[in-house]
């Protein structure tokens, strides 16, 4: 038995995903700057829909797909099933995502929007098939596999429901209005796709990065079943009856599942052998704090919704921003500099190690840029979210400027890693 092998084909596909998603992040901040006033209105606004989909697809999903091709073989302990399938999925995803975002921005719900949605659906199915067949290559089943496979299925259902909503603009598919299904679409994506996938992968990587002694999986098993139960219960109940007092019960079940995951992380942190926590990992822990804040807003959203209080719109807006621009963004901003330097380092130095003194993976990115990026992102968090809640434009402008600075610093650092030139410091 040998260890996992990096190959040039896998390297190209992974790095392409990272580079394109970094560009999408910068484009996202530009769109946000162009639509600052839209953040003081309703979330069902063409510009907000375009921004949300660019964040969810171009930034979040694309980088998760790219990282998955590198990390899922590590988590599932087998080689990726097919690189060709991965390229095909990427080739369909990119025009689909650009077409959908542009169609939302200009709000022309015609053939372009529909074709884009179908391209994204095909791409998601191909990605899921690739992950499933990768998992089929081995016998051992782990809780991480359950998280990852369920997440991929949820991605397909999310995109399928999104495509149906796109067609619903021009032909009557649903009897109820789109906002009713938007809640289901959003939560299938946020909880089903992002949360399950990120728990599945991080529950393997975080103990590895922290060199944690804790090896238990009982908390993860509880977390999986509680989150899945809450999600299914929510989807069925909200589809049939909309939000009601029962939604609190689903929130408590899902919250308990999330709490199990946080306890798991805490146990990993407490039992870590590596005492010093680096900046990329601190960014990751910031993301969990932002996720907690977002989850704590949910009871308020349910309460105001049931009271028909317009405050529910503001809370929902801040909740969405905390999830997409807070939790997911912060996690990517940190984990990029744990994973990408490794991928590039293996390509440049695997054949030189033991012969020459070489840089280590953590030497491949500029630490000062990461520090500046973290500060800029913190400024974004403390200005943008309150700015949106209080509908105060100067705060929103400050936040968007800080996020644009974050994106520029991030893209510079990603370029430094990707365009790294091999160097050695003499023989060992």
């Amino acid at each position: 038995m040998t260890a996992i092998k990096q190959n040039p084909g896998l390297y190209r596909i992974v790095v392409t995903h990272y580079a394109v998603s970094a560009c999408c992040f910068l484009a996202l901040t530009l769109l946000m700057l162009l639509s600052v006033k839209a953040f003081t209105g309703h979330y069902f606004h063409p510009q907000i829909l375009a921004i949300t989909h660019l964040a969810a697809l171009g930034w979040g999903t694309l980088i998760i797909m790219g990282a998955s091709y590198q990390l899922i073989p590590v988590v599932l302990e087998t080689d990726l099933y097919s690189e060709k399938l991965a390229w095909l999925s990427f080739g369909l995803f990119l025009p689909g995502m650009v077409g959908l975002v542009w169609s939302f921005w200009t709000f022309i719900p015609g053939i372009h929007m529909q074709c884009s949605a179908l391209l994204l659906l095909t791409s998601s199915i191909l990605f899921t098939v690739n992950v499933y067949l990768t998992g089929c290559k081995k016998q051992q089943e782990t809780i991480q596999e359950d998280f990852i496979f369920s997440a991929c299925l949820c991605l397909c259902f999310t995109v399928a429901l999104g495509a149906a909503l796109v067609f619903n603009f021009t032909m009557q598919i649903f009897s109820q209005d789109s906002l009713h299904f938007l809640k289901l679409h959003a939560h299938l994506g946020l909880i089903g796709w992002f949360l399950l996938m990120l728990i599945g992968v991080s529950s393997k990587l975080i103990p590895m990065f922290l060199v944690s002694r804790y090896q238990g999986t009982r908390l993860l098993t509880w977390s999986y079943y509680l989150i899945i139960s809450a999600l299914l219960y929510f989807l069925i109940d909200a589809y049939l009856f909309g939000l009601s007092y029962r939604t609190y019960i689903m929130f408590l079940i899902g919250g308990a599942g999330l709490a199990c995951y946080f306890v798991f992380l805490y146990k990993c942190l407490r039992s870590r052998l590596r005492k010093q926590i680096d900046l990329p990992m601190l960014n990751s822990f910031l993301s969990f704090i932002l996720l907690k804040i977002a989850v704590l807003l949910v009871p308020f959203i349910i309460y105001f919704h049931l009271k028909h209080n317009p405050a529910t719109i503001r809370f929902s807006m801040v909740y969405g921003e905390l999830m997409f621009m807070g939790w997911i963004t912060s996690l990517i901003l940190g984990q990029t500099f744990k994973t990408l330097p490794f991928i590039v380092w293996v390509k440049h130095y695997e054949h030189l190690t033991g012969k020459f003194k070489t840089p280590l993976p953590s030497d491949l990115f500029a630490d000062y840029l990461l520090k500046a990026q973290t500060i800029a992102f913190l400024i974004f968090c403390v200005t943008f979210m309150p700015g949106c809640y209080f509908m105060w434009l100067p705060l929103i402008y400050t936040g968007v400027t800080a996020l644009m600075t974050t994106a520029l610093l991030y893209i510079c650092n990603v370029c430094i890693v990707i365009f790294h030139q091999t160097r050695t410091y003499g023989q060992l």
Partner: protein
Amino acid sequence: MASFDITDPLSFLKAEIMETLRLVIDPELHINIIDLGLVYGIAIDADNRAVLVTMTLSSAYCPMGESIISAVKNCIEGHYTGYTAEVVLVWQPVWSYDSISEEGKRLLGL
């Protein structure tokens, strides 16, 4: 952790190779593979000038596994002219955090 028999005429060379392998650093933890307890044993075929290193990894699909293996081979062949090195990965006994030496724990800040 490997042990040496002082009646073996090659034990000095084995111990020396073991010390040399301290130059191989785990890229993530920044600690050498000897203090991490990854090397289980060294065998030397003096006639054929071949070194066989028996070692493990922290997990079967350690992302840095290939790099560590090639580093071990490069390190031995670079320092012992005329010798060839081979690495055999074994998974018994399973590596655990208890395999880390006292020095390794100190380097980890424990």
